[in-house]
């Protein structure tokens, strides 16, 4: 009896016939040209590694349309579970050791079948009948890996919020049917938008504000959004782009204030005014670096004078009153001079009228409030932002009227005021705003300069490309969701692409942000005829 040792069995599928072949180690010749596994079957199967990392191989040469990219999402169906994984890296790999790829071997460099690319993927979680959850197990080895399509990602639709900002991006392909939307509910927490110049930050803000306008116009908004625009690009657009005012269909969700005379001619845009008596010494104190004596004097002003302090301090009697309190005349002279500069420089400061009560009312109604301050100096901008945000916090600290909406204050170039060491300017909002329903939306190119503790309180992050490694590591250290694995992807983000990390969406989502002009066109086409609540009751007079 011929002894035969079976090394192992392999299954091969050829022409739909399952063949069982045995291999004899005793010297019986086997036709090696006859394969028992087709080349294609070794690829796209999970081969390693652990609960925290999946690996599979793919052909080393792929047609353009099938090329795999960092950020792409794959799925592995295994029994009742669908595992999802996102590509983190793609590496050259082979079954050879040594310098095989530079060694001549017969007629070619290598045996093509033995080389491939290795895909490193990060498990996102798994979907079962109960929905999406983090995975605590691994898929069976050799399970097939396939590109996730909208069917497998459908669960994400349910996790999305109400503020649409773009569509899901799978690698560099967009899944049009899968909108990416932030949650209004998360907006009393701070939010961060991180992008280097030219990555589409302004476009993102316009899309975000437009979605908020839509919610506000429909009476569904849960927070008011304050956008202070020092670049004058959101109101009517700039350099051919469109602005928020162009969104006529939902214009009732927007209120605009401006310091620009030309923009103020529009019927829907109000000239910004801040009443003298609304300004407090603390608003001035954030503007300059004061000596401790000057700071003491500033802090005493509200004790010595009433709400008319700005005028009183400029008078001889006012000065005398402060000197009699023990403050140096020179100290008071500096303060007085600086205050005079601020009041004279900021023409929006008015004796009688103020836009701030209206701004507060609109924010509490959940509207988008745009404050357009083109060509304003850095200092004036900070001063204005300081006055408005202080008034907002004071208002929100009071008992809430029923139906009051939360508030989100955007701060451009946020590192100026939310940096480590200079947080004093917005400290109270940064630290305690959340308690009262006031959140900050910090926009910055340099997250590394933002106060670490504050950064860790950001619940929603929109990352739109950060070239600086320090910026990325600062974010990765502080973010509530783990972004460390996305380092490569963040580096490779293109204009208009973003990674969205927010608490209610189970994992950081790659998104393609809508182009504002396209989104605007879509919103303008939406039919609202059946929504109008306040109408004339159908009556249109017959006029001769």
């Amino acid at each position: 009896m011929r002894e035969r040792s079976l090394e192992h069995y392999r299954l091969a599928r050829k022409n739909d016939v399952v063949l069982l072949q045995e291999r004899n180690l005793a010297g019986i010749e086997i036709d090696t040209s006859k394969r028992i596994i087709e080349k294609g079957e070794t690829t796209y199967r999970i081969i390693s590694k652990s609960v925290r990392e999946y690996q599979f191989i793919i052909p080393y040469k792929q047609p353009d349309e099938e090329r795999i990219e960092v950020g792409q999402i794959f799925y592995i169906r295994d029994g009742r579970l669908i595992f999802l994984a996102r590509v983190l890296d793609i590496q050259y790999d082979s079954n050879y050791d040594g310098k095989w790829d530079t060694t001549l071997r017969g007629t070619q460099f290598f045996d093509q079948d033995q080389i491939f690319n290795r895909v490193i993927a990060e498990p996102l979680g798994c979907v079962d009948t109960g929905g999406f959850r983090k995975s605590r197990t691994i898929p069976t080895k050799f399970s097939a890996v396939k590109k996730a399509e909208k069917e497998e990602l459908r669960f994400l639709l349910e996790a999305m919020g109400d503020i649409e900002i773009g569509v899901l991006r799978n690698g560099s392909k967009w899944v049009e049917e899968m909108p990416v939307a932030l949650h209004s509910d998360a907006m009393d927490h701070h939010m961060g938008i991180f992008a280097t110049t030219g990555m589409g930050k302004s476009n993102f803000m316009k899309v975000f504000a437009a979605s908020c306008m839509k919610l506000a116009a429909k009476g569904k908004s849960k927070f008011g959004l304050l956008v202070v625009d020092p670049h004058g690009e959101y109101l009517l657009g700039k350099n051919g782009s469109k602005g928020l005012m162009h969104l006529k269909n939902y214009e009732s969700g927007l209120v605009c204030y401006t310091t620009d005379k030309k923009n103020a001619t529009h019927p829907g845009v109000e000239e910004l005014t801040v009443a003298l008596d609304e300004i407090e010494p603390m608003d001035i104190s954030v503007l300059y670096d004061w000596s401790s004596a000057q700071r003491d004097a500033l802090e005493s002003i509200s004790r010595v004078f009433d709400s008319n302090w700005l005028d009183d301090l400029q008078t001889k009697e006012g000065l005398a009153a402060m000197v009699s309190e023990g403050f140096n005349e020179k100290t008071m002279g500096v303060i007085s001079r600086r205050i005079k500069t601020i009041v004279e420089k900021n023409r929006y400061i008015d004796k009688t009228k103020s836009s701030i009560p209206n701004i507060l009312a609109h924010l509490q109604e959940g509207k988008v409030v745009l404050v357009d301050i083109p060509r304003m100096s850095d200092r004036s901008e900070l001063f204005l932002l300081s006055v408005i945000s202080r008034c907002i916090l004071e208002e929100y600290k009071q008992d809430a009227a029923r139906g009051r909406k939360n508030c989100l204050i955007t701060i451009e170039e946020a590192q100026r005021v939310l940096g480590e060491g200079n947080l004093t300017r917005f400290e109270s909002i940064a630290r305690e705003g959340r308690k009262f329903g006031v959140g900050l939306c910090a926009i910055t190119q340099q997250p590394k300069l933002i106060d670490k503790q504050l950064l860790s309180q950001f619940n929603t992050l929109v990352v739109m490309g950060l070239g600086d490694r320090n910026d990325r590591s600062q974010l990765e250290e502080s973010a509530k969701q783990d972004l460390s694995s996305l380092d490569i992807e963040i580096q490779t983000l293109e204009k208009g692409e973003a990674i969205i990390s927010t608490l209610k969406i189970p994992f950081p989502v790659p998104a393609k942000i809508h182009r504002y002009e396209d989104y605007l066109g879509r919103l303008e086409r939406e039919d609202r005829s059946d929504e109008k609540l306040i109408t004339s009751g159908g009556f249109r007079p017959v006029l001769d």
Partner: protein
Amino acid sequence: MKIVHMSDSHLGFSNFNRVDKYGRNLVEEMIYQGFEQAVERIIHLKPDVLIHAGDVFHHVRPRIRPLYVFKRGLEKLQDAGISVVIISGNHDSPKSYSAISPFYIFEGMKDVSIAHKYQYDSFHLEGHTFHCIPFCLDPDDYIKEFSNIGRSGNDVLVMHGLVESLKNKKMRTVGEHELRDSLLKSDFDYIALGHYHGQTQISKNAWYSGSIEYFNFGEASDRKGILLADLEKGVVEQIEIKPKYMIDHPAIDCSGMSSAELSETLQNVCDPDRIKDHILRINLENVSRSAYRNLNHAKLSKLTSAALYFKIRIEYDDEKERIDDVPVNALRLHEEYTRFLEDQASRNMVSKSIKNDVKAYGSNLLKRAVEAHNIEAMDASE
């Protein structure tokens, strides 16, 4: 150029059921007289133009009397060579097909320009352009109509509605049209506003003239009258037509007062000379029921008979402290309903299986009901 700015005459308004010996409502008569007094005063002031910024009539279908009073006033102004610019307000603008604007009657009168067709209109008088936006049917229309304004360099804007800066004032009523502050542009020589009954400056160039009369106790502290504006000098003069005749007496704490003490307190407050022809309300707090019951009410009536109207608002000491709930926005009843239902559901008062259906059906029904009702709601209450 001088203009007089007045508004909110509400001719035809009647109240309090007090009648004169001919059976005419005293308040209604007083309002006609007030209007005539104002016309006399305006003629005396000799402005180039009189602006009436809306609500000439209290009703969409005024009776003959208010129409006649108004026509007579216009004729007097005409004779005095004063041009008149009028816009319609929420009270005198029809909101159904069954009525037409009362201002059709006055169209074509010499030197009388009226904007009452729910749309922007402009009149050129004495080198100035009067841009008029009367009451519009949809709140969004104001911005649209405003867009039609072309500046001439000497521009006066006339509008009727509540500007948003004033919206926290008590006057806000259901369905009220709000004028955005963004319409109050600083390049107008003057902005004449109507609708709010207290004389108020809104911005450097924008004023509510206020009404001449008091229409409810909420207005007791308002300044009343007309405004004389000199457009060249940029000066606005506040002119009183009638002395103040409404008193809403600050609350008196009556804790522990006997009926005799209560009577004495009222007597002190109701000095017949002080209250003669006045509309008076006295607010009493912490009043003992028995003390109030034992008051000599006949004596009290006699004491206050000199007043045009007298009312005691009383809060008894045994009344539980009222919980002042936030008033429900009548235009957002469907939201209120949704909140209510959610609350009920959270207490298991509504079955989960039907909750969503009930919510959707109910809120939709309320939404439609509010829409249908809105035509009437745009009228301020009587």
